[in-house]
């Protein structure tokens, strides 16, 4: 009985099938017979989908000076299914390619798809395009697609700006926005601001007649999407200062980073040797890239944030600050340069002894700072040496060392402030002490910092205890007014302690190593350093800020393999400061010596 009633369910199921079939047929009747919008009006016109590539956003410096713009180029596209009989020889002549090359390209395009456009020849010159444009109607299946290429009015800031290249398969697989042949920012700002700069692609559906002529848009552009221009960027960089820095650094390996302390805005950011960014554009990019990447002086390497150096003596103030904060050092504390207390680090300078913290910074006294560091590890009162070490490390990292600062440029390296665990791994747990890690007291040993971090620490000193995350873009869109705000990071050291080391740094410039390189009419505070280099001559370092009272620029200069900090890094930093504040440099002799100096 039950099965009888259930058998009647056959009807309900067949009814469901019929309903679905009926709905489909109604829908198809609508699509195919009633709705005219899906029909091709002209007889068998072919649709052509032309991607509308928006121009990438322009890039300006902090004063509105143009750094990057676009230049139009033309890609020659081919749709193999539409290629018919044509004068191939003439076509090859116009393009300056061989008959062989023509066949090769057409074959490749056919293999990709007969019905989708392929790139036939990329980035035609304006001249070639001019010739071709009028005759294109004779070559059915070929058409021209406008693209834009980056252009740089001045050959500066290459590492910072980065470059643009074609997307690879990996990117296409990962991000559906990109299609083969699209451009994407590969490094620098072009990469980190890709989404703002690129804009949004559009697509135009055009009808093409049998003579390869576009006869209009399809369905009045119903299916078209409009390309949205990329957003312009305003950098924090001062192009004039940047250019001046690159001039000073020519012939030298190293880096200069200058920051506005009150905002974290990066004023100059350069790595030397650099390259002309125009080299990595368009058809020549591949060849030039190979050439640059094989150069032994590594012009592609961004030393400003990927070069890691022992900060040397520029690190001494950091240890003094920790000592002051932890109460193991005050302005009355004096240590002697000689004797058992200073062993095993000895002083090579001739100066008064015993000496206080001001003179110790001014004279860059190693034994003094060793004593300070030993007190931090032995008696800053957090318990064991290990705990005191960890506490020291915490203070140091609060000033931006040993971690990525989080700039808006990718690929930043973190430097290194070694953890207690790292020393455990080297020496064994409990088997290392202040003596073992004594190099840290003078910024040597396992400590590493990038020029960006050293410049940032100068900004911390300038601000007496805080920094804004350094960055290179201040605004996007069409206004110079700053629209992007960055985090303020406060160090774990009280502001009054900074006054002590700032005074020491001031004395460096008035009485110490930097007294010969005072920028004209500017009160500079600074510190030289020499980073030991196991692979060759030591690196020369200088960090500074100015003016002392109301700093507007903090700077770090690293010149590789050039010996003492006072030889190259110091004069270059002082010239940069003078240039930035006074807008012109009076010390032409120093300037000339720096520009002409070569260290490699």
């Amino acid at each position, binding site marked *: 009985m039950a099965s009888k009633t259930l058998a009647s369910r056959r009807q309900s199921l*067949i009814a*469901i099938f019929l309903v679905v*079939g009926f709905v*489909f047929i109604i*829908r198809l009747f609508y699509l*195919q017979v009633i709705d005219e919008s899906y029909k091709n009006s002209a007889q068998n016109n072919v649709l052509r989908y032309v991607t509308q590539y928006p121009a990438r956003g322009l890039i300006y410096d902090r004063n509105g000076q143009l750094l990057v713009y676009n230049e139009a180029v033309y890609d020659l596209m081919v749709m193999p*299914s539409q290629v018919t009989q044509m004068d191939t020889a003439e076509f090859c002549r116009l393009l300056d390619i061989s008959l062989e090359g023509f066949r090769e390209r057409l074959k490749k395009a056919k293999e990709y798809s007969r019905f989708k456009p392929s790139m036939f020849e990329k980035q035609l010159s304006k001249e070639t395009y001019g010739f071709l444009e009028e005759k294109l109607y004779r070559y059915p299946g070929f058409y021209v697609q406008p693209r834009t290429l980056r252009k740089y009015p001045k050959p500066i800031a290459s590492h910072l700006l980065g470059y643009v290249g074609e997307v690879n398969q990996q990117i296409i697989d990962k991000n*559906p926005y990109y299609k083969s042949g699209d451009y994407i920012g590969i490094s620098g700002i072009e990469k980190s601001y890709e989404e703002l700069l690129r804009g949004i692609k559009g697509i135009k559906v055009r009808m093409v007649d049998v003579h390869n002529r576009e006869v209009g848009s399809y369905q009045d552009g119903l299916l078209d999407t409009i390309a949205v221009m990329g957003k312009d960027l305003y950098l924090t960089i001062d192009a004039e200062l940047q250019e001046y820095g690159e001039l000073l650094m020519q012939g030298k390996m190293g880096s200069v980073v200058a920051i506005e302390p009150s905002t974290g805005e990066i004023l100059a950011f350069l790595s030397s040797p650099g390259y002309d960014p125009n080299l990595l554009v368009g058809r020549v990019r591949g060849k030039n890239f190979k050439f640059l990447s094989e150069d032994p002086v590594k012009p592609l390497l961004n030393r400003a944030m990927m070069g890691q150096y022992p900060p040397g003596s520029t690190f001494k103030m950091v240890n003094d600050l920790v000592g002051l904060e932890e109460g193991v050092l005050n302005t009355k504390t004096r240590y002697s340069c000689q004797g058992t207390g200073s062993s095993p680090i000895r002083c090579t300078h001739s100066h008064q002894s015993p000496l206080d913290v001001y003179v110790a910074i001014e004279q860059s006294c190693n034994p003094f700072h060793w004593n300070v560091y030993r007190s931090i590890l032995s008696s800053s009162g957090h318990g064991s040496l290990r705990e005191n070490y960890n506490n020291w490390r915490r203070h140091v990292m609060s000033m931006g060392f040993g971690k990525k600062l989080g700039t808006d440029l990718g690929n930043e390296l973190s430097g290194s402030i070694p953890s207690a665990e790292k020393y455990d791994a080297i020496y064994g747990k409990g088997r290392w002490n202040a003596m073992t890690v004594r190099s840290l007291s003078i910024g040597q040993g396992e400590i590493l910092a990038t020029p960006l971090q050293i410049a940032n620490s100068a900004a911390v000193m300038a601000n007496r205890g805080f920094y804004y995350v350094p960055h290179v873009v201040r605004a996007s869109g069409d206004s110079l007014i700053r629209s992007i705000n960055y985090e303020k990071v406060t160090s774990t050291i009280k502001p009054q302690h900074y006054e002590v080391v700032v005074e020491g740094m001031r004395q460096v410039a008035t009485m110490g190593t930097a007294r010969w390189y005072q920028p004209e009419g500017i009160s500079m505070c600074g510190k030289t350093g020499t980073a030991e280099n196991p692979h060759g001559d030591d690196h020369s370092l200088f960090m500074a800020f100015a003016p002392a009272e109301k700093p507007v620029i903090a700077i770090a200069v690293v010149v590789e393999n050039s010996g003492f900090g006072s030889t190259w890094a110091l004069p270059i930093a002082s010239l940069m400061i003078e240039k930035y504040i006074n807008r012109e440099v009076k010390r032409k002799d120093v300037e000339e010596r720096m520009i002409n100096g070569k260290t490699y």
Partner: protein
Amino acid sequence: MRDRKEISGNIDWTLVFLYLALVIIGWINIYGAVYNEDHSSILDISQSYGRQLIWIVTSLFIGLVIILTDARFFSTFAYLIYGSTLLLLVGVLLFGNTVSGSKSWFHIGSFGLQPAEFAKFATALAMAKFFSSQHINIKEFRTRFIPLIILGVPAVLILLQNDTGSALVYSAFVLVLYRMGLSGNYLLFGVFVAVLAISTLMVGQYYVMGFVGALAIVLLFFIKRNRSNILNLAGLLLLALGFIFSVEYAFDHFLGDHQKTRINVLLGKELDLKGAGYNVNQSKIAIGSGGFLGKGFLQGTQTKYNFVPEQSTDFIFCTVGEEWGFIGTTVVIVLFILLLARIINVAERQRSPFGLVYGYGVASVLFFHFTINIGMTIGLVPVIGIPLPFFSYGGSSLWAFTILLFIFIKLDTKRASLL
């Protein structure tokens, strides 16, 4: 000799004819979809239409082998066949190859095999076997629960391969359960759940929650307001609200970006003619441009020109629409409906529950593929990549549908006996 005659006499030639008609029309349309002047022979095996011919010939051979097999084989070994395909599904998860995002292929040389396609007939066999056992009573929990396990295991394994479309096919078996006595309320409930889910995605959870809440209040005036009724209503309301919330949550958290976009485009929330909407839009243009009579064989420009990766597989119906017009699409739909109705009618004449349930399984699977595939090409259903049975290019799919149907044809030759 006598035996063979008996077999051929009992074969339901209507089913065979409908099968052949669909397969051949499909092949002609694959030729039309990827027609290429350089390889204009329909037998050129470097092209998909040439290879499809190989699949067709081998499918016919497979069909013949099935017809010559003892019908008892399928009922006796139903669970064994089911178990082996489950092992294959696990195997493909561990050792399979990934093709366009789904880890669902075994590659042996240039030959690719998709176990998920074969799991369908194996599942239908297992369902048939279960319902032909003793002590079946759809009112009992056990009878309702075990089929869910039989369906759920392959569905989950296929879901793990990231092949959502093929996994959804198993929901079609609810039609089998309905035929076996499951209350029609479950179907209605299913429809209600689907409506809730779709409307949540379309207008947002809060509106739908508000609407359901209002509905509950209105109901409150129509029911007897005793304690148990009110509690039931409140329980149902909570269940519905929880469901709405979890739909939105799952959409936000579990779906990949491109799945989200596809759903949003389908629901009209997003206009993305380049991305997810591209295929559907092109598909509609291709079908629409065919008009009443079509552009003629090999004359289609849209299908060839536009969307390429799926023109001969999931979007084969576009070629029908463009080259053969409304006449062509109607013929194909009518053929499918005839096939489905014929399967149901043949299923009903089985004496054994095994044949009956298997037949309904076949109809359910084919119906689901038919509805989703054609529905998506004409923009009525989300773009879920499953093939059109007997039509779409592909060896695994054609073989699997052939096996699915021919086992049924074979069972039907023994309809008079109790298997």
